[in-house]
């Protein structure tokens, strides 16, 4: 473990989280909250709030985008070690990676064919 690198990270994490929390104390600076029902009502562009909560069903395509993203993200992160070692791994690594990318491309083509990314 290298203290020289990670100590600053710990310090910046603590400071950057602590200071925004301090900003929450600004409620004592301003007017005291009246806490009336009318004021605390959810903003609905001026009309009375008709629903008791904001629950809304979403198109499944959002979920599909998330699934596709998880997989592509993993594949991209697999590419990083290869990109840094491009010269050491040589031609063999290159072919290896193109097979990997070919599979990625096959997945992408399947997604296009299936219309999972067709947002109309």
């Amino acid at each position, binding site marked *: 473990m290298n203290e020289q690198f990670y100590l600053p990270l710990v310090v910046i994490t603590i400071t950057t989280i602590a200071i925004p929390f301090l900003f929450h104390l600004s409620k004592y600076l301003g007017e005291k909250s009246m806490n009336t029902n009318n004021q605390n009502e959810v903003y609905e562009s001026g009309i009375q709030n008709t629903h008791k909560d904001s629950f809304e069903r979403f198109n499944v395509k959002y*979920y599909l985008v998330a699934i596709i993203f998880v997989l592509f993200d993993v594949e991209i992160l697999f590419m990083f070690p290869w990109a840094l070692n491009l010269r050491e791994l040589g031609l063999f690594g290159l072919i290896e990676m193109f097979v990997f990318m070919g599979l990625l491309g096959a997945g992408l083509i399947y997604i296009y064919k299936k219309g999972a990314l067709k947002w109309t």
Partner: protein
Amino acid sequence: MFEAIAFYTFSFLTILMFSITVMTSQALYALTAMAAGMIFISAFFFMLSADFLGAIQIIVYTGAVMALYAFGMMFFDTTREVKEKIQNKNIVFVLGTMVALLVVAIFMAPVVSENIHALYPIQEGLGNTEQVGIVLFTKYLIPFELAAIMLLSAMISGIVLAGKKMDNSLTLMADEEIELMQEANEKVNS
């Protein structure tokens, strides 16, 4: 000294966060606590000088997998209390305890028998990411390609499972059509 303090602090925080995830009944607390727990786990990778894996832990688990969970949550009402149907509390308790003990036993076995020794000791002068790359593309080449095929099949199955009736949009359909569809669904279910 510094390392020990860091280790125990992050262990405590990780366990605390995942306990909140399991114990709470508010889905949003669970989501937030789980994301925070994932970030705290990455601290262990950083402590072991495995920076690349630490960064991947943050990007994949916190950035991608939790986004997936968040979308999963949006399909359900997060403010509603969910009552579980538990037929027999004893069975749940016994099975849960057994699984927990089994997991502890599996993870304690190498520690107790002192079988741990580093297969790839840290090379001086090379960054962690480069080492991962060299090992990945020489020794673990087949698993690497298999991982690609696994990812591909996961993608296809995900789309096949989640993408049924994808082109039906409830907002664009007339009320009668929706009723017809619901009746058809009920017939299938009954």
